[in-house]
């Protein structure tokens, strides 16, 4: 049984007990505990079930590499799945639940999967596709759905909030162990700005646990004073609980800071995602211990030797009463000695090496421990946890030579530098035979924008072993980072703290215990605990031809999900290498991808949720629309009133009322969102003629002209009314959604193609509120406001504009019409837009003035047969398709789109062209409906000959009207087309002119 020791635990505070629950059971731990240490302290070794076979699993590690102890944390709006118990700091009231089991952690029905495991080999998922199709639907999918998935997604909206934080720093140091501290200090001494981050809540890393002594002090004491002295440097910033999630191009790094996970508080941000632009990066990310592959190594109670030591030293927790050590290196002897010192049983130290002659082995023997060289583990007895260990010779095939009672196994297969960050940014690795690990190759570092190294490795992350060498390398990394930025040159670097390198006996790589384990044992020797990948699975993948490490990874799922090659990597590669007969260094590693540890979706979203998910653009009249109960329509980021339903009125009824009121009296439209772009200069005329298909240079000052803009591809991209303000100034109105795009495109042509032309453009869209007054009584309303100018039909005819004052407000009035009615668009400075709107409403009262929304606008323009960008156009339509030949100048040598419109298929007589469509029964055609044609196409589908682009109920005509693009449409007036619908008979419609209402324009010219 694991339990809390009577004393010890450098990170816990026994005077501050904390209550928490696990699977509904109330438990207690101490401040400073992790969830894992608190559970172990209460005898709870079993913490989860595996993903594929639902095997019982206990905690293996003590840090972010933990594969098994993933829990669901919290509840409701604070629930989060797949949280590592090993990195979760305990707090009062913490609620955790284990995952992947039903009905309970101890008795899982799904665990039957382990009996069936021989039917779930590598790539079983892919292989199922080879079987009869019906099997997939009726057998595999239901079975897989039942058991698959890691944890459960939260059901409630996240109650917390999150934020981003952008910084630029000269040097970022990742990792706050002794290496990171030394590197940060050395970097700061060059004069650079330094940010030092540590994933845990405390500084110093694992040096205090390993008993390292620096400058004659214990690591804890040294760390305390080193941190204090760093904090006093003005150019150093430090953060704990901050993990470097990913290193990206050009020194861009994402840090995940957890502010309140250890002390929940919804009033402050839970996580902060730091977006760091670093000049140089130092990775002091340490190393990770590797497990050993032996039969039954996934039984709860099998742990990394360093983790066992961590639990004893850091938390005063004994993972077991009797711990057998299994190792291929000297470091695990530290665990044996630590356990012994804590008064715990260590029945044997099994050393797979033939000789165990280092000073640590000697110390173990001196302490009275039984050290057994050349020894391995043949098997484990015990169901939900280790009970007995069967010993064998490491050289053999697993013949049992002895059996020992034990409840814990501390295994060590050697150490691998944590190279993830180095590899994120394409740093390369080299194989170190002596340590049997991949380490960063300083000759092939990640490079930055200048093509030079942007990253350095410090301490154990560099492959250095022994405290003295670790500190040397860390100091050098800090100095190099500063020098790379041109800092600290000519300055003598500070002193490197001194630590002793302990002599040790070389490790010997062991990839399988025992070396000649038969299949039955290899099929129970786990490589990847989280994804249930065993030695036999990797062997099978190799036999089936998955020779590339990347393919083998995907086929077996080795190192996928949250593991990302942390625990499983090297052991898996070594097995693959053995099977292929290729050296490990040639097999290579899989790609280490960000994030290093999972980052919450909330942190990624930052502030962009709820009301801040996307900007909402508001016109100066927006508040009035809200107060008047507008039904909204999004137009780009704008919100525009779609209609203003009155009490008891449906949206459809409102649109009908608004159209009728405008056609018979007068309507009022907030048109402020229309794009307004000024083009000015000696070459503005020439530029305007290039932008528009029309001839804009001949437009007279004081007049307006409807114009079309095409892309260089020939397709129609925007339209609007252009007003000539004076000799060298034009004002271009664009669509609401097109303003920014068209302004950008004008700048692009002026800057990158015609940069010698003297023309400036300015987007003044937001300077003006623009209000449309439309209908037979429009002029009467304006005249109520005592205009300073003559608004009569002769002084201000259709398609003219004038400046003046309306109700003492400076305005510009355009006589333009999208409704087909007598219509004025009035522009006023935005700050007075609301006042103008209010005055027009007041002045219009006697005439029954009716505010109308975008839908009434659309209906009225469709009644007139006016096209709408985005309805009649979709990026493949040219003006000629829409019968707009009259707006395409024949007298110009060039304009954007002209050359493209000369291409063969643009002039094809079979192109679909614009017509009106009138249903025979008066109904409204479905939007986007296709007109069926005879026969089938090459894919056996019914041929089509046209489609509906706009379709409305017309209140003016009291029937459905539509526009559509039809093959040779204008040549087929009067023909009847059939539009199949999903349910029921096809709708029949006649091809007619699109101008349904007032085709001669008498009303707008009034």
């Amino acid at each position, binding site marked *: 049984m694991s339990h809390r020791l009577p004393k010890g635990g450098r990170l816990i505070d026994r005077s501050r007990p904390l209550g928490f629950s696990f699977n509904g059971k109330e438990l207690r731990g101490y401040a400073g505990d992790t969830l894992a240490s608190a559970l172990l302290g209460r005898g709870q070794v079993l913490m989860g079930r595996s993903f594929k076979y639902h095997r019982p699993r206990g905690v293996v590690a003590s840090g972010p590499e933990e594969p098994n102890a993933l829990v669901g944390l919290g509840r409701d709006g604070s629930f989060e799945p797949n949280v590592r118990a090993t990195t979760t700091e305990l707090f009062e009231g913490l609620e955790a639940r284990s995952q992947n089991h039903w009905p309970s952690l101890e008795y899982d029905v799904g665990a039957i999967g382990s009996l069936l495991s021989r039917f779930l080999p590598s790539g079983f998922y892919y292989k199922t596709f080879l079987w009869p199709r019906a099997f997939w639907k009726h057998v595999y999918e239901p079975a897989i759905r039942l058991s698959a998935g890691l944890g459960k997604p939260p059901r409630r909206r996240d109650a917390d909030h999150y934020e981003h934080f952008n910084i630029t720093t000269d040097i970022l140091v990742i990792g706050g162990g002794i290496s990171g501290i030394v590197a940060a200090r050395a970097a700061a001494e060059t004069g650079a700005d330094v940010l030092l981050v540590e994933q845990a809540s405390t500084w110093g890393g694992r040096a205090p646990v390993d008993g390292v002594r620096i400058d004659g002090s214990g690591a804890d004491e040294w760390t305390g004073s080193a941190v204090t002295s760093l904090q006093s440097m003005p150019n150093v910033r430090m953060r704990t609980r901050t993990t470097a999630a990913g290193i990206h191009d*050009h*020194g861009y790094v994402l840090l995940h800071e957890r502010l309140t996970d250890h002390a929940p508080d919804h009033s402050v941000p839970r996580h902060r995602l730091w977006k760091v632009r670093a000049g140089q990066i130092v990775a002091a990310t340490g190393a990770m211990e590797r497990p050993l592959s032996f039969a039954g190594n996934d039984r709860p109670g099998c742990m990394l030797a360093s983790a066992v030591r961590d639990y004893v030293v850091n938390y005063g927790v004994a993972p077991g009463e009797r711990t057998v050590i299994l190792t291929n290196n000297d470091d695990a002897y530290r665990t044996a000695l630590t356990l012994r010192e804590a008064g715990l049983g260590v029945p044997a130290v099994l050393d797979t090496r033939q000789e165990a002659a280092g000073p640590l082995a000697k110390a173990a023997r001196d302490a009275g421990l039984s050290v057994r060289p050349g020894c391995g583990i043949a098997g484990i007895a015990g169901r939900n946890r280790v009970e007995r260990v069967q010993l064998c010779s490491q050289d053999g095939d697993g013949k049992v030579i002895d059996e020992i009672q034990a409840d814990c196994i501390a295994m060590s297969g050697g150490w691998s530098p944590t190279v993830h960050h180095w590899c994120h940014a394409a740093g390369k690795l080299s194989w170190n035979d002596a340590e049997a690990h991949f380490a960063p190759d300083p000759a092939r570092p990640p*490079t930055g924008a*200048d093509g030079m190294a942007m990253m350095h490795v410090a301490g154990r992350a560099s492959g250095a072993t022994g405290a003295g060498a670790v500190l040397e390398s860390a100091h050098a990394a800090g100095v190099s980072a500063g020098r790379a930025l041109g800092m600290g040159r000519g300055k003598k670097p500070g002193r490197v703290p001194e630590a002793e390198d302990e002599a040790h006996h070389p490790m010997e790589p062991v990839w399988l215990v025992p070396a000649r384990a038969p299949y039955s044992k290899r099929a129970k020797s786990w490589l990847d605990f989280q994804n249930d990948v065993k030695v036999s699975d990797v062997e099978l993948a190799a036999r089936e031809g998955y020779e590339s490490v990347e393919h083998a990874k995907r086929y077996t799922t080795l190192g996928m999900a949250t593991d990302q090659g942390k625990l499983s990597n090297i052991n898996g590669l070594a097995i693959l290498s053995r099977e292929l007969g290729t050296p490990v260094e040639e097999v290579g590693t899989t790609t280490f991808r960000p994030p290093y540890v999972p980052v919450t979706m909330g942190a990624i979203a930052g502030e962009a949720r709820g009301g801040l998910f996307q900007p909402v653009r508001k016109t100066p009249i927006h508040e009035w629309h809200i107060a008047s109960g507008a039904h909204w329509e999004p137009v780009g980021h704008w919100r525009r009133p779609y209609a203003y339903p009155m009490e008891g009125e449906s949206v459809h009824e409102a649109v009908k009322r608004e159209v009728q009121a405008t056609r018979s009296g007068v309507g009022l439209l907030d048109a402020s969102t229309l794009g307004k772009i000024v083009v000015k200069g000696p070459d503005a005329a020439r530029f305007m003629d290039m932008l528009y298909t029309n001839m804009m240079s001949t437009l007279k000052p004081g007049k307006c002209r409807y114009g079309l803009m095409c892309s260089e591809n020939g397709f129609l991209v925007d339209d609007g009314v252009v007003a000539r303000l004076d000799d060298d100034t034009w004002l271009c109105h664009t669509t609401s959604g097109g303003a920014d795009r068209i302004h*950008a495109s004008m700048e692009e042509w002026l800057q990158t193609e015609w940069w010698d032309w003297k023309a400036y453009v300015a987007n003044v869209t937001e300077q003006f509120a623009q209000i449309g007054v439309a209908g037979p009584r429009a002029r009467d309303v304006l005249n109520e406001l005592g205009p300073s100018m003559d608004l009569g039909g002769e002084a201000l005819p259709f398609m003219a504009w004038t400046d003046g004052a309306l109700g003492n407000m400076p305005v510009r009035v355009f006589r333009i019409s999208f409704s087909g009615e007598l219509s004025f668009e009035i522009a006023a400075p935005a700050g007075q837009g609301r006042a103008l709107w209010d005055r027009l409403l007041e002045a219009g009262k006697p005439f029954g003035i009716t505010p109308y929304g975008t839908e009434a606008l659309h209906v009225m323009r469709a009644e007139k047969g006016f096209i709408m960008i985005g309805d009649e156009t979709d990026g493949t339509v040219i003006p000629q398709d829409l019968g707009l030949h009259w707006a395409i100048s024949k007298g110009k040598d060039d304009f954007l789109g002209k050359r*493209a419109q000369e291409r063969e298929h643009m002039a094809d007589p079979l192109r679909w062209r614009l017509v009106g469509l009138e249903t025979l029964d008066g109904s409204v055609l479905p939007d986007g409906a296709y007109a069926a044609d005879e026969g089938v196409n090459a894919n056996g589908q019914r041929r089509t000959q046209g489609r509906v682009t706009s379709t409305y109920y017309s209140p003016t005509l009291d029937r459905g009207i539509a526009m559509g693009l039809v093959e040779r449409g204008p040549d087929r007036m009067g023909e009847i087309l059939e539009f199949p619908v999903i349910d029921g008979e096809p709708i029949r419609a006649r091809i007619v002119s699109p101008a349904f209402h007032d085709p001669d324009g008498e009303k707008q010219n009034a």
Partner: protein
Amino acid sequence: MLILTCPCCGIRCDETELAPGGEAHLKRFGPGSSDEEFEDYLFMRANPMGVHFERWLHVYGCGKWFHAARNTVTLEVYGTYPAQVHAPPQEIRDMISTRVPGWRWKDDS
């Protein structure tokens, strides 16, 4: 995340302040050009592994287009320069030649 220095305002900006504009130094073909010339101009784009010239817009900034000479494999940036040129300036070419021995501007071959 690319970080480029805008040559027009001097700001070192990351990709989120920029908008990409594809291959630089294209020649426009208008009316009178052959179908092949026009097709090349509209659709055919270089997509090299290595040295490349791109157009970027400092959209959340001074609003100017500029060119960047960079390496699509190593992400090294050889330099940025204003867009009002038909070919990369000599100092940019020299810089690339130093870093990529044997490299030549396409029109110089």
